[in-house]
Every structure is written in structure tokens, then in C-alpha cells.
């Protein structure tokens, strides 16, 4: 399984599709323990990112990731903008110059993205943030390689597991124990990112 610029664009396309379909749902997750804008933020950002990369003609996936990163950074806003922006930016830097990414090169890119998110957000696992999806999924990929169905299941499980966590980072942290019982919004949108990857890789 190899990823070229076209597939990278397809990944963004699929991600956007899922985000738009679940815009209301994402916002509803952000309402009880946040400020109720996550769906709006993500839908605005990915729509613009897709428009940007669809219009371009990219030699490498890294170039796609860079434009996605810059668009997300300037269009999403809030906390998730710099987080997803940083993720794609680090992915771009880690995979720079390579026309086609093999499995190990792409996973290295995802590792860099995860590190970027953790650094930017000063968060670690267990804090009820998107890190709680990114870290287990990246680790699972390191151990198991690209297996679409396994990837999807891992991402979904990680997302659902945020429900029982108490938030200690982001807006949800102000709700302290009351944050328990709600899936984290950024974990859910991260799940869509990986679900889209699984579909693209699975050839759907």
C-alpha cells in the first residue's frame, strides 16, 4: 500500500465528506462540555482545505498536507484549528520530498503528527482530547500496519473510550467531573479522519 498525492487528496475529500455529514453531531458533542462550535469549526476548515487541494496539482503528498495544514490553521480557529493544522504540518515536514509514501514512511508522518498535537496542546493520553484517538491509532498502525477494518475499529474504540474520561485539558476541563459521560468532540472528528483513511486505503 502506497500513498501518492492523489490518494492524499482523496483522503481529505473523504474526511470532508464525513465531517460535513456529521457537522451537527460534532457540534452537539461540544455543547454540554464545550462551547458548541466544533462541528462548525471543522466543517468550515475542511471545506476550504478540500477546495484548496482539489484545485492544486501536487508532486508529493507532503505538498498536499502542507496546504491542508495552512488552510486548517487559518480557517478552523479555536483549539482544533492549530491542533489539526499542526498535525498536517508535521506530517508534511516528516514526509517532505517523497513522491510516494510507503507504509513505514506514512506511519512516520502520522507519528510526527501525533507528536505535533501533543506538543501544541501540551496534552498526553487520558486527558479526554483528540490525543486519546491519535495515540492508540498511531500505535496500532505501528504494530499492525495498514489494515482498514482493524484501523476503523481501533479508532472507533478509542473515540468511545473518551466518554469515561475526565477532561483535564481544553474547555471541557472547566467542567471537571461533569465532563464524564460525554464523548470528546475532537476525538470524534479525529475518528472521522482515520475512518476516511481506512476507506481510502480499503479502496472504497
Amino acid at each position, binding site marked *: 500500500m502506497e500513498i501518492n498525492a492523489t490518494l492524499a487528496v482523496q483522503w481529505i475529500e473523504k474526511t470532508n465528506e464525513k465531517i460535513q455529514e456529521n457537522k451537527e453531531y460534532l457540534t452537539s458533542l461540544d455543547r454540554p462540555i464545550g462551547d458548541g462550535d466544533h462541528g462548525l469549526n471543522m466543517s468550515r476548515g475542511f471545506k476550504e482545505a478540500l477546495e484548496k487541494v482539489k484545485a492544486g496539482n501536487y508532486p508529493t503528498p507532503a505538498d498536499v498536507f502542507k496546504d491542508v495544514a495552512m488552510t486548517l*490553521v487559518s480557517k478552523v480557529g*479555536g*483549539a482544533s484549528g492549530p491542533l489539526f*493544522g499542526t498535525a498536517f504540518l508535521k506530517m508534511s515536514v516528516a514526509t517532505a520530498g517523497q513522491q510516494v509514501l510507503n507504509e513505514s514512511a506514512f506511519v512516520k508522518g502520522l507519528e510526527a503528527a501525533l507528536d505535533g498535537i501533543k506538543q*501544541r496542546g501540551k496534552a498526553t493520553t487520558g486527558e479526554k482530547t483528540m490525543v486519546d484517538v491519535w495515540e492508540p491509532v498511531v500505535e496500532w498502525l505501528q504494530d499492525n500496519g495498514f489494515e482498514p477494518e482493524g484501523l476503523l475499529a481501533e479508532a472507533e474504540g478509542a473515540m468511545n473510550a473518551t466518554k469515561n474520561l475526565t477532561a*483535564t485539558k481544553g474547555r471541557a476541563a*472547566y467542567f471537571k467531573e461533569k465532563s464524564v459521560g460525554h464523548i470528546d468532540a475532537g476525538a470524534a472528528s479525529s475518528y472521522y479522519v482515520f475512518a476516511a483513511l481506512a476507506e481510502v486505503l480499503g479502496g472504497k
Partner: protein
Amino acid sequence: MKKIINDPNEAVQDMLEGLVMAYPQKLQRLAETTVVMRKNVPVTGKVGLISGGGSGHEPAHAGYVGKGMLDAAVAGEVFTSPTPDQVLEAIKAVDSGNGVFLVIKNYTGDVMNFEMAAELAEAEGIQVEKVIVNDDVAVEDSSFTTGRRGIAGTVFVHKIAGAKAEEGAELSEVKRVAEKVVANVRSMGMALTPCIVPASGKPSFQLDENEMEIGIGIHGEPGIERKRIGTAMEIAHELTEKILKDREFSGDVAVMINGLGATPEMELYILNKNVQKILSEKGIHVYKTYVGEYMTSLEMAGCSLTLLQLDEELKSLLDAAADTIAFRQ
């Protein structure tokens, strides 16, 4: 939703336009951004001072742009951090070669977006330093939490770091006094009614007719306690005690009684009377008092109390002249 607006999605742009139209001799916009700047930026030989954050806290932050305080303010959507590209443009516009200082309120979004902007600016060869304001004692603070929010105490950071920058101090010195303010300032707020973000059209939370919430954030983040509304004296006690329990104050302090939006000045002055009484009983001397709307939360009713421990340096910087829309002395 009862608001004097046109398209809710254009509210911030409309506001910025109306603001510079009101004070064209003092303020200008940076084209195609949400940045409001002094007329004469960059000021030669001066560290550039920038603050900003989500809109809805007016007069913060554009109201503090001017001589003796900020060089530029970056406005995000209502209660949403501005994005790094906007902050970057502000940094580039105010840098005179002496570096730029960012005053950031401690919210995840603000911190991340401003930090990213700082990194981008540094990549372009601009020296950037920052301070993160976290004066709200309502929130627990530790390295394992999001930490305390930045609220009205931020205005003292603008004032004092602004005065230092205006003196021609270098970046590290501006940072030093800004950090000194942050170390010495504490705030505590309370709300009587929620506010309505124009784009959502709905109140951000609910409070019963006889309830107040102590320790609430300026975006309606939950506070410490929801209880029966008390008298001004009880509220003064509650806010003062929470602050004094967090940190000792002695000698000279500055006091800010900040209205959150809908609370009439009359009530702020009544609260001030009670706060001053409590402080004087505790032997704390009030060097200077500010009463008014400095850091609001749209049309939320409520207030916050801020205490700043002063020393000789902070006193002289607090006393220095300032000439902005919302803070002039």
C-alpha cells in the same frame, strides 16, 4: 435574541469597521485582517505590544490600542481565538526591529493560535516573546490542568507592559514586568445572567431568577458554585475572600471592579464601596481603583473583582500616561 446587528456572521467585521470609523484619528485596521492598530505603527525603537482573543469582550482588546498600551489587537470571532495568520500579520505590522510581545489570555485556543503565530514570526526572523495571563482564581491551577483562565487582570498587563514598552525598554524587560503583573494579579468573577453569542442565538447557560454563579468565566465557563443571589456586601465578601485565600495581599494594591456587560455602573460602585470596606478592614491599602467595563462578556450581567499587588515599579508604570479609547489617564 435581541441585538442591534445585521448578519450575525458579519458582526465582528461590522464592529471593527464601526470602531475605526468612530476613531479614525487614533485607530486603523490592517487591510484584510481583523487587526486594529495604532495609526503610527511600527513605532520606531519600541517593542511592539499585541493582545487579542475572541470578540465579545469589548472594550478588550481594541479599546486598549494606543499610546502607553497596545500597538495592535487581533480580534477573533465571538468567543473564538483569532487564527495564527491574523496574529502573524499583526506581529509583522508592529515590529520595528525591536521585537514583539504577545499578551495572551490562558485559554487553550488562544494559547495555541498565538504560539503558532509566534513560531511563524520567528521563522521570518522576528523576535517574539509572550506572557500568558491566568488571573482567575476560580479555576484550579496545576501542570496537569488547563490552568487558570485569563480575565480582567489582563488589562493591568496591557497597562503595565505597555508603559514599559513605551519607555523604550527592550523585549526582555517588557516580558519581565508583564510576568511580574501576572505573578501579582488575581481575579474572581460572578454572573447573574448568561449572554447570547450572535451566531448561536441562544443563552450559553441558564440561571434561575434568584440564582447567581460564583467564579464563572467570561465565556460562561462554569464557576465554583451556583447559589442564591446575595447582597452586594455578601458578593464583595465572597469575591474578596476567594482572592485573598489564594494569595496574600498587603501594602498597596490596585483594584478593578469590572462589569461583565449588562450590570449598571450604579451596581459596580455599590460593590466597590463594599470591597473597599473589606480591604480597609484587612489593612490593605488601595492605591488606585478602576470601576467600569474593562473585560466584558457580551450582555452578561455580573462582575469581576481584580486585585493587583503593587510595588514601586508597578506603581510608576500603572501611573504612566495612557491614551486609548477605553483607558486614558
